[in-house]
């Protein structure tokens, strides 16, 4: 259905321009380092960073680190989903509770909860539990709010349809409310996963423990400058891939319409 050939050329032009100017910027940095306008001990030449990739990947156990971070993120997002969805349903079912606490939950969602990580260090120790709990804490409030939003946003007419068929309260919930709210809940789950991942990598870096976050910290403390840049690029690529995957997953799970 797309137009004649000249148009398909135009379609890829923006993407080429975007990636092309990134590549151009990298080349410019390389050039500036080469002519010593930039200090190579502050900004290493991009070619060094590229050369550091195999070293970082082979010598720093990147795969096991990645699995650790991924495992932590998975655990945190499972916890977030279970407690968050349950919390949202609870607030929806008990209107009084919702009236009393919805603003509190919204306030918690806006608070910089990740700053509690020293507290969690004391409570749970310097281990994976602290990291998972931090991810869980940061992701909980948003998914409660999203679940509530989805349930409360169910169209009046759908609820009335259910009532006209004399559904029991439990049928009303499972056959009408929950399916209607599911798309919004998926959005919340994706948010929860992303929040968990951001906070997990961040805390790994801050407390120098575990997976990919710690890798950056270690390389930086060893003054392996090219290695640090390479590790940062690696983490960015991983988060972008995860982000894209969750996007795909959400689109795939969401019913059409």
């Amino acid at each position: 259905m797309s137009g004649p050939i000249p148009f398909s050329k135009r379609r890829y032009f923006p993407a080429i321009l975007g990636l092309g100017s990134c590549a151009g910027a990298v080349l410019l940095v390389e050039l500036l380092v080469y002519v010593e306008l930039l200090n190579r001990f502050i900004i290493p030449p991009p070619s060094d960073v590229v050369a550091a990739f195999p070293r970082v990947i082979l010598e720093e156990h990147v795969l096991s680190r990645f699995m650790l971070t991924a495992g932590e993120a998975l655990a945190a997002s499972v916890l977030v989903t279970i407690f968050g969805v349950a919390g949202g349903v609870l607030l929806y079912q008990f209107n009084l509770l919702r009236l009393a606490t919805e603003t509190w939950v919204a306030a918690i969602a806006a608070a910089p909860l990740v700053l509690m990580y020293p507290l969690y260090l004391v409570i749970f120790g310097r281990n994976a539990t602290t990291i998972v709990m931090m991810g869980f804490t940061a992701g909980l409030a948003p998914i409660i709010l999203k679940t509530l939003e989805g349930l409360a946003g169910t169209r009046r007419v759908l609820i009335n349809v259910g009532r006209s068929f004399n559904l029991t309260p439990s049928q009303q919930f499972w056959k009408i409310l929950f399916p209607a709210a599911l798309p919004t809940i998926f959005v919340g789950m994706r948010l929860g996963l992303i929040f968990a991942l951001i906070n997990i990598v961040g805390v790994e870096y801050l407390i120098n423990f575990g997976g990919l976050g710690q890798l950056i910290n270690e390389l930086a403390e060893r003054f392996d400058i090219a290695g640090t840049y390479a590790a940062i690029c690696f983490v960015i690529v991983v988060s972008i891939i995860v982000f894209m995957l969750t996007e795909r997953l959400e689109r795939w799970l969401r019913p059409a319409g």
Partner: protein
Amino acid sequence: MAETGRLTAPARARRWVQAHPVTTLRIVIIVAVLLVWEGLARSGWLYRDVVPSWVAIGRALVVTLSDATFYWHLYTTFYEIGWAMVIGGVSGLAVGILLGGSKLMQRAYEPLLYYLGPCPKIIFFPVMIMWFGVGPGSKIAMGAISCFFPVALNVAGGMREIDKVLIRVGRSFRANTWQMVTKVYMPAMRHPIINGVRLGLGVCLIGTLLAETKLSNAGVGFLVIQSYTLFNMPHMYSLLIVLFVIAIGANALIGKLGGLDQIRRS
């Protein structure tokens, strides 16, 4: 929980409870949390001071708030956040307008921002230390990077969502460029801009304070990590309470100022 029927309370109290069920429930929840907390603190089941008594936290809060050096650290943090918001906000606004104003720019560069936006920003901190040193400079950079993304993405989205007919109205009355910006574009984009600033401030606070906890000798983030090193838990709680009150308060204030809670004028 809010039922008071079986209590032998006076009729007046019962009527008040019936008239204010939400407030009653809130009070009940708060009291319950405080009681459980205090019970835990006194039970001795947890490590010493992991859950300090409310009395100890309250006392630490008073000590913190009446300490002049705390305000110096608070000033340092505010100073960093202020500059971070200015730098990140202005560059975010500029980039957002650029992306929102041109279809080509949007399609070329917005995906980059969109996918970089949710990356954990704190991992840039070692690089920021190399570039801007261990002082406030690297913290400002962290805050600015954090707040840049939500501002830019919100402004770009807001600009695209301006009702096109309003632009035609402005042009039909021959508004000049400056008038178009101040009287049409800016007011039409006020909600996305303010929302971007609100989200930006939230992540800016996190970016700046986390950087302070990692490596610094001043700022509230430094105080938090210092209280951890000294294992002064009541002090850490008092600092976290102050930070959360500031963050939640600022968030609510921006929301209120921007009329985000008002649908009437939307």
